């Protein structure tokens, strides 16, 4: 059957629908943001110039176009406030991803080795937190971590500490929040690759003289690399842009990009700089996204 036959009629609509979605809800808004990032801030409504007015003729439009500049991007590079918050975002994302992997891998491994029936139960347990709003769960953590919260009361009751520990507004609290929130996104892809791994491969490794430990490092880990990659990127990418968790749980002395962006936009009302920061963040996330896409594709090809 030719490609033309496949993409005829309703099938063609189905094929272009995702692209239509991308254009309407990603490319067009991104175009607006990109345009604002090239504008100058102004005390006006909207708070930037120039404004493209398509009713004032071609010359006015050309003049407006001439006012666009990359000044905001230069500002981002020259002011180390932005550079530091980008660095911090990447650092936080890398650290969190490593912690997530260290916790998520054993959990996924254990799940994949459960009897079939219990695997479904374990899966539900991993997903169940999503039934509660994300924000409510983070507020619950504030409750647990506060001065007279559950965690401190348990530690005091067990005589592990003599006085309450300050958890809130620390990086520790932020990491707890991030790891807690993103753990399912690490576990699920890892579980998916580990569960479909052929058990006879481990038997073969044992048969050929590998101890269980060697079999794990020589067979299980290399074969779960696609899952490790998918899980890591699925966590890393959104954590870089994370705003709510650091804002609610971390201290205010160093900011992640998401927070800087929020500050520029809502507090300083500097839409152009905020837009430039957003565009830069997106540009930073393109390489890991491409990597993720390539991993996914390789896995699909591997399965066919």
């Amino acid at each position, binding site marked *: 059957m030719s490609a033309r036959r496949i993409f005829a009629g309703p099938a063609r609509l189905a094929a272009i629908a995702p692209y239509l979605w991308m254009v309407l809800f990603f490319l067009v808004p991104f175009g607006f943001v990109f345009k604002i990032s090239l504008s100058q801030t102004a005390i006006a409504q909207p708070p930037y110039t120039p404004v493209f007015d398509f009713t004032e003729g071609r010359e006015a439009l050309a003049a407006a176009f001439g006012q666009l500049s990359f000044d905001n991007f230069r500002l981002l590079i020259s002011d180390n406030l932005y550079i530091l918050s980008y660095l911090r975002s990447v650092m936080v994302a890398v650290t969190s991803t490593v912690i997530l992997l260290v916790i998520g891998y054993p959990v996924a491994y254990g799940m994949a080795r459960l009897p079939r029936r219990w695997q479904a139960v374990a899966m539900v347990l991993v997903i169940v937190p999503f039934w509660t709003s994300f924000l409510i769960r983070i507020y619950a953590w504030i409750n647990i971590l506060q001065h007279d919260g559950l965690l401190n009361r348990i530690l005091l009751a067990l005589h592990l500490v003599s006085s309450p520990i300050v958890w809130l507004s620390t990086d520790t609290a932020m990491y707890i929040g991030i790891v807690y929130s993103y753990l399912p996104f690490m576990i699920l892809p890892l579980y998916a690759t580990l569960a479909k791994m052929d058990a006879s491969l481990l038997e073969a490794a*044992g048969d*050929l*003289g590998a101890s269980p430990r060697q079999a794990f490092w020589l067979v299980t880990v290399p074969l779960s690399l696609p899952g490790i990659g998918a899980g890591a990127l699925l966590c890393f990418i959104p954590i870089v842009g994370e705003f709510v968790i650091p804002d609610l749980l971390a201290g205010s002395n160093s900011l992640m990009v998401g927070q800087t962006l929020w500050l520029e936009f809502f507090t300083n009302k500097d839409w152009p700089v905020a837009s430039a920061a957003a565009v830069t963040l997106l540009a930073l996330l393109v390489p890991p996204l491409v990597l993720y896409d390539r991993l996914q594709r390789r896995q699909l090809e591997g399965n066919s």
Partner: protein
Amino acid sequence: MPLLRIEGVAKAFGNFRAVDRLSLDIRAGEFFALLGPSGCGKTTLLRMLAGFETPDEGRILLGGKDIAQALPHERPVNMMFQNYALFPHLSVRDNIAFGLRRAGMARGDIATRVDEMVALVKLDGMEKRKPDQLSGGQRQRVALARSLARRPQVLLLDEPLAALDKKLREGTQAELMELQRRLGTTFIIVTHDQEEAMTMASRIGVMDAGRLRQVATPRNLYEAPSSRWIAEFVGDINLFSGEITSRENNRLKVATRGAGTLVVSELWPPVSNDVVNVAIRPEKVKLSRRAPASEEGGSQAINRLDGVVTDVNYLGGVTTYKVKLESGAMVRSSVANTARLDIDAYLAGQRVVAWFTSDDCLVLEQ
């Protein structure tokens, strides 16, 4: 002392007794086949030899040493898996070298051994490929080379040819036999395909419900089955139930319900029960238009059965006939098509005499 002695080995999964107090000796250099219907416990037995299952009771002595509780990586035994279980992330060369590296062999020796194995299974030029770049037959060879690379004392093969198509399977059978003869390694193969077991093995153990029903050479298994169950499981057979009426001159006379009185040569050891089955393989039942002269049987008695041909199946090399006797019983006969033209063929509806000698049939207890 045999190379491998299995002594009263049992394994149960819950209430299901997969292997039930089974004992078996296997000599060094043998090509032994475990044959049986699915669920008979043959794979469980093989997995206990490899160390993937631990026996609930009994001993497995390899060269005099009990390995029943040893872990897989501690045994001088290797297995070729039914699905080959090749490591998908490793090349052909690394798959074959996997076991050698674990054994701590020197790098140079590994390279030499891998080259040797690659040549042995005729995979030259494929060393760098990954398993998914190989055909089914090539994968089978990699699996074989990988399991032989460590020079195991015993090679276990779990349905090694099941995934291959018929033509390839026949060629591979011959290659496996040739390889086994050349290396002198003891092979234990698990199969449900009796033709495969007959072709390759020097001895066959037939398993059913966790026990060995008979251990014999292919010829003895076919020509001297120890029970009715074996006779029906291995090949095709005609059975007439009846009662022994006389025993003289090493000959039994059996009064059967379907085929009158039949004369059977006495077996050793003699059957103790008088209620028996007379069993005769279809290719030993001859057909003729007229009653055969008694000289045709030589010194043996001839059993003659009159009947009418009801079914004719031409299968190429042989033609199988079904003959309905006057009693209503059916006899199956298969006749080799030794002539190209059909002068010897019988037609459905034709009256024939089906006959066989007293040596060609045997009695089996119920």
